[in-house]
């Protein structure tokens, strides 16, 4: 059998792919967290729950309304985005004048409620969500078989990260967003409706989480804990990348997914902790994170 560094190649590539898939979810989730943190100064603990909500909405659309995957890929982020608008306007808005910790507590409570309601209604064993017909099967790449759906997930996540990055870095809306992150009162004095911008930023960030949730639905079964499983690692990704850094979250998300995957090949026992090991090392060397600006 073809070997790499003494390990069978199919195992290596398989774990690399798994790492890339996890990395894709880390990137999408930490990207939304970074955008929200930059603008609202809130660590959105509800992010994992909203990722899960995205998957549930996709499942519900199919189960109750017969609306399939491709439509759900747009509709679920939209629905969760509207939920985000309401959350920001009705709840989070009232905390901006208080310490950041209150925002964290509120969103953490929100996460517990959303996950609790889902568990109450659907149990915690999870429900299957079928891979759409067009993406079933696998492709022989010569060195490995690539399940089509997994390839699609990596591609879709990468494209969505790229689009988000382009919008923030290269458009006038993005310029307004960056400026408001630096000095919101002055941007408002320039005629920008900053409160609305903040609402839309939160909605956009959670819509990204929901998009990731729909992508994840066919891979991990749709279950109330799927967000909680991810979110702790995602917070580590955000810290390693640098709080609020857009590029940082994308690169770190994919990079750490790959590191995690490779660790499963070389030293499986450490695969669950390697990301936190990286976090410790990065924080010792660069307290502001890899891409963060020192405060």
């Amino acid at each position: 059998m073809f070997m790499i560094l003494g390990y069978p190649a199919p195992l290596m590539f398989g774990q690399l792919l798994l790492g890339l898939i996890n990395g894709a979810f880390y990137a999408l989730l930490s990207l939304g967290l970074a955008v929200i943190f930059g603008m609202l100064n809130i660590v959105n603990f509800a992010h994992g729950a909203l990722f899960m909500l995205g998957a549930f909405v996709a499942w519900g659309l199919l189960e109750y309304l017969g609306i399939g995957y491709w439509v759900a890929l747009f509709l679920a982020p939209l629905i969760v985005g509207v939920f985000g608008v309401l959350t920001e306007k009705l709840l989070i808005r009232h905390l901006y004048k208080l310490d950041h910790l209150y925002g964290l507590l509120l969103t953490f409570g929100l996460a517990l409620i959303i996950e609790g309601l889902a568990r109450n209604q659907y149990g915690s064993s999870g429900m299957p969500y079928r891979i759409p017909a067009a993406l079933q099967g696998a492709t022989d790449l010569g060195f490995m078989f690539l399940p089509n759906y997994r390839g699609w997930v990596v591609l879709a996540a990468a494209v969505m990260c790229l689009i988000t990055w382009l919008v923030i870095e290269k458009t006038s809306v993005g310029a307004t967003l960056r400026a408001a992150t630096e000095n919101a009162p002055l941007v408002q004095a320039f005629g920008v409706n900053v409160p609305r911008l903040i609402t839309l930023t939160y909605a956009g960030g959670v819509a990204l989480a929901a998009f990731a949730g729909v992508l994840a639905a066919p891979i991990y079964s749709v279950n109330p804990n799927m967000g909680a499983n991810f979110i702790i690692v995602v917070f580590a990704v955000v810290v390693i990348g640098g709080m609020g850094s857009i590029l940082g979250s994308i690169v770190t998300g994919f990079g750490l997914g790959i590191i995690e995957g490779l660790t499963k090949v070389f030293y499986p026992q450490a695969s669950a902790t390697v990301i936190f090991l990286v976090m410790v090392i990065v924080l010792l060397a660069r307290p502001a994170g890899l891409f963060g600006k020192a405060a």
Partner: protein
Amino acid sequence: MLEVRGLNSWYGESHILHGVDFDVQEGEVVTLLGRNGAGKTTTMKSIMGLVPRRQGSIRFKGQETLSLRPDEIARTGIAFCPEERGIFASLNVTENLMLPRTVAPGGLDLPTIYTLFPNLKERASSQGTKLSGGEQQMLAIARILRTGAKLLLLDEPTEGLAPVIVQQIGRTIREIKQRGFTVLLVEQNFRFAATVADRHYVVEHGRVIDMIPNAQLEASMGKLHGYLGV
């Protein structure tokens, strides 16, 4: 154009303005002179709605603006250039220039702005904060000329700048006055203020205590030295 009456402002528990009264007529350049901490900047921020709490009356073109949010005040046609210039580090020069919203027709177009501030064109893709202090000040003024706002609030535009740049800013202010803009200027440097302004209000302890037309500035030097402690 602008009527401020009995303006009181607070930052938390600190009562900064204790009943500020003054007027700015259309087409005028008016300065607020006064020592550090007299309340000049707070007056500007109060007009823009950027203080936590204010009372009294601020009428712009007859409209009461006290209950409006800063973005709504901006859209009535008032533009603000803050003391710290407010150039955004994460935006390049062009993005900084295009950031303020267009609030009315009749703002300067980009070619005109680049004629007034040739440096900005050369540095269009530079990061905003990589500019020199003088260039940053030019950018901070240039971007509010674009918006169509006709009342410009300039907070100490000459602070910390070399004399040659101060002269250039003086020329710019006279130029925009000729183009029909109205300017409210906060200054500590009354020698500079004398070269651009029509009238001067003296601010002390959160109140306007005197008004001196520019023509009488020479005659009022003794009084002014007393006010400003120079």
